[in-house]
């Protein structure tokens, strides 16, 4: 295993220092960039620095952060910054770790972002299941408040930056930014019809930016080291560092912070210790449960937003799930479909009805009741529900299913023919 790939920025000090303590964080230079932003720079200066870094959103869509900020109407009096910490994408566990290990870095990032967009009240929406993370964040916010970094008159500048923590109640759909805003307002967690987009009409009807935890956490470092420091790492249009959650059939699952542009092979074999002895690589989901499976021929694809998309999948939230030859892809597909079908908010037709249809069909196949036409029907149903939905959840149903059904159709056919489950080493 080569450790040279691993370049800790956000993850620096985790496991060595108690970064949950504000004093420890400050010894590492913490809150200095927030002070600098608020005291020395204008919001536009901060936004320019962010723009210069080419930072792209780390939550899933990879949208350029500076551009997202620029959509806010110039004349809006009230604006909101909302940090999305509802990390629920199957396979993703980076924000969870950052929340529990380095809460101050997140607070500082959020406040810098809030300052840059001219907002004086920021929110963090924490996934309901992250109870410990919530408690840590709550304590950290109190420490920051006591230190005068948030609240009224921060750093004696006369400026106000309020901060509210909100816990979700356990719905995947609340990670979708407008579902999150509804939930934050106390409504049903359902995505909103767009347009209007949150930048125009977001939280409580006001212009709002929703950014991911990791995205905002990079801001203090981009401020400290300058935008070029970030921009020159990795591919030009997809630069910087990324915390990648690697799980599945690898020897050392975990979070690895690497420069974008590292190959998938390097991530699996050099960072995560490769497959277990004697096992064969069968595929990898590069960007969480919503992403299509990539296979052996894709191992040397550069792990960055554009290259992974070009390879037919997506980088998503940066969650790699590795499959070896013990994988039953019918069960794997079923597990994910059941998840998406269960998490559908139920508002729009294709996702609500289509997901459930595929789930029921896979259930029957697994129970030994499959018929020959099932494979085509599943493929067709998954395909025809894609691209017709109100939000991205529905469009997450097809990619993995379609990719593995195409590659490993024999596994599906084997169930239908009621031959013994062909999992271990059966794929040819």
């Amino acid at each position: 295993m080569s450790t040279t790939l691993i370049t800790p920025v956000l993850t620096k000090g985790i496991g060595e220092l108690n970064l949950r303590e504000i004093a420890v964080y400050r010894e590492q230079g913490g809150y200095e960039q927030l002070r600098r932003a608020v005291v020395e720079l204008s919001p536009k200066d901060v936004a320019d620095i962010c723009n210069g870094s080419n930072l792209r959103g780390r939550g899933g869509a990879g949208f350029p952060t500076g551009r997202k900020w620029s959509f806010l109407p110039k004349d809006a009096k009230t604006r909101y910054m909302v940090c999305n910490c509802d990390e629920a994408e199957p396979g993703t566990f980076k924000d969870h770790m950052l929340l529990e290990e380095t809460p101050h870095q997140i607070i500082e990032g959020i406040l810098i972002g809030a300052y840059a967009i001219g907002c004086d009240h920021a929110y963090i929406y924490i996934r309901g299941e992250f109870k410990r993370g919530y408690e840590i964040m709550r304590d950290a916010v109190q420490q920051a408040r006591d230190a005068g970094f948030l609240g009224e008159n921060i750093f004696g500048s006369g400026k106000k930056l309020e901060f509210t923590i909100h816990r979700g109640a356990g719905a995947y759909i609340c990670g979708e930014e407008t579902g999150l805003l509804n939930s934050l307002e106390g409504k049903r967690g359902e995505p909103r019809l767009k347009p209007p987009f949150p930048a125009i009409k977001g939280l409580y009807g006001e212009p709002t930016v929703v950014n991911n935890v990791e995205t905002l956490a990079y801001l203090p470092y981009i401020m400290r080291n300058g935008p070029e420091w970030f921009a020159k790492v990795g591919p030009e249009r997809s630069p910087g560092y990324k915390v990648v959650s690697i799980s599945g059939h690898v020897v050392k699952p975990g979070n690895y912070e690497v420069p974008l542009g590292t190959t998938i092979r390097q991530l699996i074999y050099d960072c995560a210790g490769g497959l277990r002895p004697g096992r064969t690589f069968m595929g990898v989901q590069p960007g969480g449960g919503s992403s299509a499976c990539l296979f052996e021929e894709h191992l040397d694809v550069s792990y960055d937003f554009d290259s992974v998309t070009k390879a037919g999948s997506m980088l998503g939230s940066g969650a790699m799930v590795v499959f070896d030859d013990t994988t039953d892809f019918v069960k794997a597909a079923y597990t994910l479909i059941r998840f998406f079908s269960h998490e559908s908010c139920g508002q729009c037709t294709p996702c609500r009805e289509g997901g459930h249809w595929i789930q029921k069909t896979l259930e029957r196949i697994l129970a030994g009741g499959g018929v020959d036409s099932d494979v085509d029907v599943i493929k067709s149903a998954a395909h025809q529900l894609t691209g017709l939905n109100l939000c991205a959840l529905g469009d997450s149903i097809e990619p993995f299913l379609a990719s593995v059904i195409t590659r490993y159709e024999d596994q599906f056919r084997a169930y239908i023919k009621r031959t013994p489950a062909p999992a271990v080493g059966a794929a040819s």
Partner: protein
Amino acid sequence: MSAAVPQTDPASHAELVTLSIDGVEVRVPKGTLLVEAAKTIHTDIPVYCYHEKLGPAGLCRICLVEIDGMPKLQIACNTVVADGMKVHTRNPRVDDGRRAILEFFLLNHPLDCPICDKGGECDLQDYAMAWGSGSSRMIDPKTSKPKAVDLGPTIVLDEERCIVCQRCVRFDQIITREESLRTEDRAVQTIIATATGKPYVSDFTGNVTELCPVGALTSKTYRFRSRPWDNHRTTTSCTQCSVGCRMHVDERGNTVLRTMSVPEDDALSDSWLCDRGRYNVGFVNDERRLTMPLLKQDGAWVQIDWADALDLWAEKIKAALAAGGPERIGAIGGGRLLNEEALLAAHLHRALGVENLDHRIGTQTLVHHGSFANHVDLENANTIITLGRPPSQLAPVLDLRIRKAVSRNGARLISAGDYAADSFVPETHVTTPAGLKDAIGANPGRVAMIWDGVFFEGGPELTAAMHDLPAATRVDRYVLPETPNGRGAEALGMIPRGAGLGTGAMFAAARDGKLDVLSILGANPVLRYPDRALAEDGLRATPFVVVTDLFLTETAEFANLVLPVCSAFEKSGTTTDLAGDVLPVVGSVRPPDGVLADGDLLVELAERLGVTLPMPDELEAKVRELVKTPPADGAVPAYVRATAAAPGGALRVIADAAIFTGGGTLAFDTAIRELHARPHARINPATARALALADGDPVNVAGDNGTTLYDLVVRVDERVAEGAVALLDGVVRAPLNALGRAPAVRLEKVPVTA
């Protein structure tokens, strides 16, 4: 889900945009939604969740279209037109998309069309014919769900049929703002529900059955009763209140089965109906309808034939004229008649010199105190002031305009005096002149004032601020008539002129032996006149009382002669709404054999009395002319509602209104018995504490005239003034007017017996 409100204000649409839809060039106002733009060239884009009054929701996804330059199919309901946009509503790709959505809808939708009320008028059925497949590709069983969920007193939900378009939920959020419906659970289990344990109670529930694009929401009164192709439809105006909503009446076998809103009726109903207008139709076919004239002989009713009845009526009038002159004759009513009938009644009596005419049973002033501002003007007001009983109970569909004004324009609602407006929007309730002045503020914008037309003690002082409005302020005044056609009856002459007596004065004169004949035309003063004892005494003391009605009402019981007449579903003519518009009333069913319209009776009576009435072809022009002409003199009734504190620890009474009260058409409609208002005693929390009463307690109300109303239910409500109790008017079993004109009452808790 946020409330998306459709914008149809023509003023904002000055600029036009040119686009192409299926190769046809279309020019529509900027800001138009694609789905609306397509309608201008009669291109049908299917929709389920979209509705022009509710706006886009983007849920059903059936309205897919292809737009050049956009990689994905787009939903037409949430796409705003743009210059140069090229749209394709029918091509293989769009058809594939719609087929896909239809397939998803039909996966779990039951195939019970043959027994579904919506069959034949179902959007899912129609589009399934257009884009659906003949068979399902899903071989697993459909999800089964409850088929008859009782949502409340009026609505039943079939969960299997529901396609979760959420039109009902959005109606309840956006239009009524009552927010009692919502979606529950998620994913494929998502279902329409009410807040846990609470029934769906609203005065507008019927609208959701019409909005429902499938047969999921059905009304208890129409469920399983007919199929659309067997119904015969007539379009008329609702005569339940003075809003005059345009309304379809569906009849089968001479039975009125249901009434439906008219979607194009933007001017009056805004395409909604209230539940009274929609559901109160069962009385038409009630077996207790009177079908023969009844004469009281020795205290018992005897059926007589029409000729004898009319002869008797004419004779009595002639005799009265000969013995004492026209002052000894009076007529009450007209507000429940058609314009033409009211005109005939007034004309006939005036031709005989009779001036004792009044259509007002309660106590109203002139409806003409209202301006000619129309219903739509109300939704454009910035400040809305209500005075008196709430419009939501007197003119329910008009109240939806208030809610719309608040939702859409941020209008402010102020209620002044004893009553809150109760409109499901934020409201400022004021009880002092200074409070009203403050609430109106310096910049009221356009002002609308809605008044129930009843004077009350302290009223002029309370509303003094209305005189201090900035000079240029536009003030639209609405006076809500106490009867559906009150404005018409007033304009057409059913008010006293000169020395003529109003209703109350007629009863007093009758009691003193000064009246010989009193004709009551479609009115029920014994239940509605504020002093029941006076009304009863007056009727008892009058030698000859004629009552025309459908039923043997509380008033008819006091008559010497009762004449059975047609309901508004059984005759044609016009009625006048609260804004002074003349609206058509079109009969939809034949009256029971032996029943005549009030108009017919008056013609027969005139003939017997030698009075020449206007000919039918003159009537309409005369009606239209008179309705636009304010009455010559004031003729303000002496009645002033008391607001002074009751003596000695007793409570003063505030008369509440509710749409489901009354003695005639409501009391004789058993199909909606569950909707009849339960009499309540609303009191302030402080009053409740002082009397050791809690919300829901049963109480008796003892009046200072010795009358007691039994078994009312306590409602604790901070909007009621301390020292007062609000009691429902017009409830047959607990008639408020039995307590007298300005009663002081005591509440007695009903002991719970073991």
